């Protein structure tokens, strides 16, 4: 009984959230009054049938999921060594410094960061100036207003979430196990591959799930840095509401996207379980 009472606040919050999603499903049963911003009955499944029939949103969904998975992998590849360094460095100064840099990115708003990336990635920006001055390129390399620019900004956005999640996981790997591995003749690389990495994989999977969820819902960076060329599902939903004023269809797309995102995260959770089972029986070979 006491345990149930403790869970009550969480259950209330979840009920409110579920209610909000429920309103999405219900709004999708209405229809837009043509030429207006109003919605009206009668209730029908037309918007759901339109969504299931595919059309404009299918390529946007595919692009979004493909892009989000790619960004998650890149974030993991860059983030893991960083997390490992922060977790295992002997220097307290370096650990605090790197953590402070990561945390500092949380303190600057997304709009500020987007404008910062415009200054850095533009044709006349810092990066192109450096490459031109170094003689590595003859013409400015177009990064801004392309998928590449959006990707760089998003990886920068995702990195702290991934690293801060994984640092704890690596620190929880007992050093005694790594020392035992070395005592038994394994070199540092083999120790890492057979002990540290497998035991930190649950944290990696958590960090990747978090990164994937954030990448899937990206809105601002594609809008500001994409030059109209990068359109993810959140931007598509925004257009349905604020350009077409078709709020019922936007609600259906949102609900559909929620289902797809949950499915993607469930796949990741399944993958995590598979990996854990694999590495628990002997690590990487």
């Amino acid at each position: 009984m006491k345990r149930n009472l403790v869970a009550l606040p969480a259950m209330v919050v979840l009920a409110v959230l579920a209610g909000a999603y429920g309103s999405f499903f219900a709004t999708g049963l209405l229809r837009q009054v043509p030429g207006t911003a109003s919605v009206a009955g009668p209730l029908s499944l037309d918007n759901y049938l339109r969504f299931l029939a595919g059309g404009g949103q299918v390529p946007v969904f595919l692009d979004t999921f493909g892009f989000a998975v790619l960004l998650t992998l890149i974030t993991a590849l860059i983030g893991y060594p960083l997390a490992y360094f922060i977790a295992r460095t002997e220097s307290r100064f370096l650990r605090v410094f790197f953590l402070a840099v990561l945390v500092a990115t949380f303190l600057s708003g997304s709009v500020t960061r987007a404008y910062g990336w415009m200054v850095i990635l533009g044709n006349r920006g810092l990066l192109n100036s450096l490459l031109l001055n170094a003689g590595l390129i003859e013409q400015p390399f177009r990064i801004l207003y392309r998928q590449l620019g959006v990707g760089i900004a998003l990886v920068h956005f995702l990195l702290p979430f991934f690293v801060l999640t994984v640092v704890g996981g690596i620190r929880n790997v007992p050093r005694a196990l790594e020392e035992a591995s070395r005592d038994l003749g394994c070199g540092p690389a083999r120790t890492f591959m057979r002990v540290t990495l497998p035991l930190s994989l649950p944290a990696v999977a958590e960090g990747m799930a978090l990164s994937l969820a954030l990448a899937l819902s990206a809105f601002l960076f594609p809008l500001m840095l994409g030059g109209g060329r990068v359109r993810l599902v959140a931007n598509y939903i925004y257009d349905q509401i604020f350009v077409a004023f078709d709020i019922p269809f936007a609600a259906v797309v949102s609900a559909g996207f929620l289902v797809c995102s949950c499915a993607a995260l469930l796949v990741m959770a399944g993958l995590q379980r598979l990996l854990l089972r694999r590495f628990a029986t002997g690590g990487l070979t």
Partner: protein
Amino acid sequence: MAEFIMGRRHLLGASGGLLAAPSLARAQARDITIQIWGTTWTSSVRTVAQRFEAATGIKVNAVTQATSGEGLVRLQSMRAAPTIDVWFTTASVAERAKTDAQLFLPLPMAAISNAAQIEAGARASHWLGVYFYQLGIVWRTDQVREPIASWQDLWAPRFAQKLGVPTMNSYQARMLLVAATLNGGGIANVEPGFEALKRLKPNVVTWYSSDTTARQALAQGELAVLVAPPAALKRVTDAGVQARMISPPPSPMMYDSMMLVNTPKREAAARFIDFCLSKDMQDVIAQGQGMGPVHPGASTLPEIAATLPKPEDRVSYDDDIINANIGAWNERFSREVAS
């Protein structure tokens, strides 16, 4: 418990008070709230609001919106008890919004005496234009040596990777309609417009949806040419950039407008709308914005006046047709042109 018995006199008094409450609220409004774009507020309307308060004692609070569409959805979300009294929006979105009779009121023209003074095109049953503007071509003179003379110039190879062009939701598809008109189509046949925009792709650096971001890109040199209203010329030249503007035919004309929201402060709100349309405030607004005044007696900055198109070059597109099609056009644009 003490018993309270209401006598006939008290009852009559209380009933009268209840009946008079809404009109008292209207008469006693000491402040109103407007919903407006941030740049429009800071560039000119804030000054107008200060003078309105000095003249009437009614304080004007501002709530900003990123786009008209966002502003409309926000207003709809507070339909039962709106906290916004005057809404600034584009005329296109105003035409769509006015169908919501619960949220927006027909303008009491008798109480807005200046409405009769402004140009006829800026006057409608539910909205009044606050300034007008055209979509034209702004360019940096340090990056474009040979001046631009027509819309067709934008398709020239010399402008490869130099242009900033509005998306479908910026200026409500006017770029598509210009492209269609130039190529034998029009609002009833936008096919040539889509084909022309596809041919324009190699020259486009960014299809923009934010004026501020686009102007900044022009000021930073990321773009050499921007398809934009005259306000862009004012902003970039204010920032010290050497720029010019041309408004070639067909020159699509648009209004930003004011709508009256259904609130108890409607009388004070109507007074503010009237104040914005006075000759003196039209000077402030047009010159602050770098746009054209709707009051014939008012004037804008000389450099902006020089960009205004000749009357025979001006075109207006039917907002009802645009509103009926903008969603489909936007999807097609995103799929076939921008991607």
